[in-house]
């Protein structure tokens, strides 16, 4: 699955193939529009490579089985859309707390509730950050093309394994069903990334004693460590504790482990941000429209730029600030009533103005809308 093979794929199929290429050997899911093609493709592909495909009884069982397989040491994944993502939240939190790697795909559709199942939206950005209860570390990736879906799905596995955390990949219905031709990127490095396994004497091993990178090696069942895994707050031994002086450092380590590894996690696209007066912030499919809009605006002599987070969570705040120092305005274009704009509001520096371009009618945002929005902002100056 490596090399320069040219393919013609739908986003959801690219997601499935990217997962297999990254070494995914277990999938558990439940049918839901518009993500079902991910499952359908994996039902075909996984048995070919000796992997396991399971259609479970519900969304909760799907994430539970995915985590169960990962506890057994296998790279695993589940895919869903908004309503299913809501149902999975408790167990995603379990994975974050007990530090069980896995990948969750959310092909976003219109909401709230059942919403518009066959229409694109970007309504789950904040749910991907704060969906599960309690304080927790998080990684969410937002690819913007079919090729990027393939690559970022594979990367999600690598990050998940390396940092022992469930990683969410968010893209919307239009990208999931978009068909594009591209040369398959080489994801061997992602395939080769596996979690640190416990080695050495079992009596010297502490399940939650982290290395310098903030990540503890994991014990594989059958290797003789016989450890305890729980969703309760634990001390380094892996057994529950409620002692304040023990809980504090344990939580600090858990919440801080992503930042220590920021070089690995951070990713974004920057188009002419450095000298831009107006920076459009957009992700996923809207990033494509924004790229076109920025090109057009530049052609008209407007100093416009684009900042497109690929790693949405944690938001690349430091890089964002550095790149957009000269910007006077931000236009945050997103297919929801205003979620990314909340993050930009706190990431921007004092005198920069922020305005939102929002669409939640089940239609993508067009380049023309973005151009108009930017001009409006400049006109009001």
């Amino acid at each position, binding site marked *: 699955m490596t090399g320069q093979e040219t393919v013609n794929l739908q986003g959801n199929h690219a997601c499935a193939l990217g997962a297999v290429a990254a070494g995914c050997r277990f999938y558990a899911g439940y049918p839901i529009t518009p993500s079902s093609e991910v499952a359908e493709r994996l039902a075909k592909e996984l048995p070919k490579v000796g992997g396991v495909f399971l259609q479970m009884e519900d969304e909760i069982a799907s994430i539970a089985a995915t985590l169960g397989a990962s506890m057994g040491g296998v790279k695993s994944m589940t895919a869903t859309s908004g309503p299913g993502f809501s149902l999975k939240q408790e167990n995603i939190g379990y994975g974050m707390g007990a530090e069980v790697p896995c990948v969750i795909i959310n092909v976003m559709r219109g909401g709230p509730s059942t919403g518009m199942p066959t229409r694109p939206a970007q309504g789950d950005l904040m749910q991907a950050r704060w969906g599960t209860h309690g304080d927790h570390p998080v990684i969410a990736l937002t690819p913007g093309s079919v090729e990027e879906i393939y690559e970022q799905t594979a990367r999600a596995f690598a990050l998940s394994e390396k940092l022992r955390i469930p990683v969410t990949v968010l893209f919307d219905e239009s990208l999931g069903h978009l068909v594009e031709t591209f040369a398959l990127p080489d994801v061997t490095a992602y395939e080769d990334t596996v979690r640190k396994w416990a080695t050495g004497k079992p009596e010297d091993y502490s399940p939650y004693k982290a290395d310098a990178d903030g990540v503890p090696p994991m014990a594989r069942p*059958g290797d003789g460590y016989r450890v305890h895994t729980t969703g309760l707050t634990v001390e380094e031994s892996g057994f529950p504790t409620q002692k304040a002086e023990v809980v504090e450092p344990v939580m600090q380590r858990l919440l801080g482990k992503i930042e220590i590894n920021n070089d690995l996690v951070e990713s974004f696209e920057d188009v002419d941000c450095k000298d831009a007066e107006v920076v459009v912030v957009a992700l996923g499919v809207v990033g494509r429209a924004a790229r076109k809009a920025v090109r057009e605006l530049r052609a008209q002599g407007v100093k416009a730029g684009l900042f497109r987070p690929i790693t949405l969570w944690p938001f690349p705040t430091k890089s964002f600030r550095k790149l957009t120092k000269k910007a006077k305005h931000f236009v945050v274009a997103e297919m929801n009533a205003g979620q990314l704009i909340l993050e930009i509001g706190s990431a921007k520096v004092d005198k920069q103005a922020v305005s939102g371009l929002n669409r939640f009618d089940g239609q993508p945002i067009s380049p023309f809308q973005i151009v108009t929005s930017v001009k409006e902002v400049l006109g009001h100056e």
Partner: protein
Amino acid sequence: MNEQVALKKETQAENNKDFEIRDYLRLDLFPHFMCPGCGHGIALRALLWAIHEQGIDKDKLAIVSGIGCSGRVGTYIDANTFHTTHGRPLAFATGLKMARPDLHVIVITGDGDCLAIGGNHLIHAARRNLDITCLMLNNEIYGMTGGQVSPTTPHDRFTTTTPAGNMEPVFDASRLAEAAGAGFVGRELTIHLPRLRDLISEGLEYKGFSFIEVMSDCTEVNGRKNDLGSSPEMVLGQTRTMRPSEYDNNVVDHPFRPNSMDMGVFVRSDRPEYGESYRNMVDQLQGLTQKGQK
């Protein structure tokens, strides 16, 4: 074949003799959290005894549990233990067993965990018939949260959420598992320890989904509120409402034991085990692919 069976029985009897529960416990976690008089400890002893009898390697043993009193029981076992979320241990175990068929996967769950919040997973695990042993500790109450009504709380029983007595009908968990397709189903009381051990042992040996319902007792938040007496009194009370499965529901005994529940093995079927079926499909597919490539 008969010789093999005889040999196996002999080995089991031999294993039986040198069973030492401390070999299977995380003793540094003691004292344990269970209330005085709780039946869960006896169920744990029966389980460990059966594990010993079956000669299961602790390194290859995976205990998966959910939330509640039953969920905490597995913590004390010196094995690969997974304390998962409320109601979901069977779903976690399904993933684990499919990914790692070499592990011996046992689920310890309770009546609330398995029949209420996790009811959907129970019926589908039974239907799938994957090689998992599910031990449901039925104490007829939500003990950990302070004694609320559960799907198996008997009629008229007082609990913190049924101050006027329970008006809802109960689930017969074993019959539910049977109807859903579990390959092996049985029920036993904690007072019959050797019989409980044998039942679990047979369940562990069975290739497929085995559902074992252990009638436990909760003296603290169930018995006390209903004047069911001390733990021995409660357990003896259980024996009065139970009958061996050989007894017909309609025989003379019945009028003297109204609403009695039966005990013993209810189902031993030769339904295909799902993991094996899946792996056969994978092997066939890979064989076909290789043929096609030639």
